[in-house]
């Protein structure tokens, strides 16, 4: 289990290779990359700044991964989330899950993203032609997390 909060970009191939390293029982690798879009809620986005809650962030993501490992047959999982100022086309977040079979890998990867969206303390502030604005949370993200059922 690896969780990294960093300003630097990441290389997906290298991260996947590290996560897979030495485990020839892995048959499936599901991954997700979140990317900065140049248009959000109707406004052009020039840059975006990501604030977080140091300490809690890592703890919250650890909990999400532990929960995913309890629900599915997963070998390992990696989450990298960037902070600081990003521009359109920049990578924001990477989630990788390794498993013997693809169903477990896909489910755990999507579960981790859905929970990260509602449980991990990150906030985005966008610079638009009309000034800076904090991104509003989406009801669809609450719904996406809720459909996995109660956490207990």
């Amino acid at each position, binding site marked *: 289990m690896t969780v990294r909060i960093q300003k630097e970009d990441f290389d997906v191939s290298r991260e996947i290779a590290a996560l897979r390293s030495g485990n020839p029982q892995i048959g499936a690798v599901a991954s997700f990359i979140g990317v900065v879009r140049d248009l959000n809620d109707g406004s052009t986005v020039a840059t975006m700044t*990501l604030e977080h809650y140091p300490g*809690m962030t890592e703890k919250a993501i650890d909990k999400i991964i532990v929960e995913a490992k309890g629900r599915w047959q997963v070998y390992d999982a990696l989450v990298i989330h960037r902070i600081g100022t990003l521009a359109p086309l920049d990578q*924001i977040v990477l989630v990788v899950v390794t498993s013997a079979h693809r169903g477990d890998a896909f489910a755990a990867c999507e579960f981790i993203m859905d929970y990260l*969206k509602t449980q*991990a303390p*990150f906030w*985005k502030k966008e610079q638009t032609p009309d000034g800076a604005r*904090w991104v*509003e949370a989406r009801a669809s993200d609450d719904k996406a997390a809720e459909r996995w059922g109660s956490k207990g």
Partner: protein
Amino acid sequence: MLKILYFAGLREATGSGSEELVLPAGVHSVEGLLAHLRARGGAWTEALAVSKRVRAAVNQDMAAGETPVKDGDEVAFFPPVTGG
């Protein structure tokens, strides 16, 4: 003593990133602490209004209104998260 942290729009609206606060008499939960802070008036009342859907964490775990708050705790208030 409580350590209180504010993040994102809430930090900007209150003008406060963090503060140390003696646990006020009668405050035993997140909801009680929120009511105490709202009673400061002005920006505090507005930023912490129920309509703002303020979220809280106690000792870095997501908390609900009834989550207990005791001396020595780290309590954070922030808007709904928007990472990922």
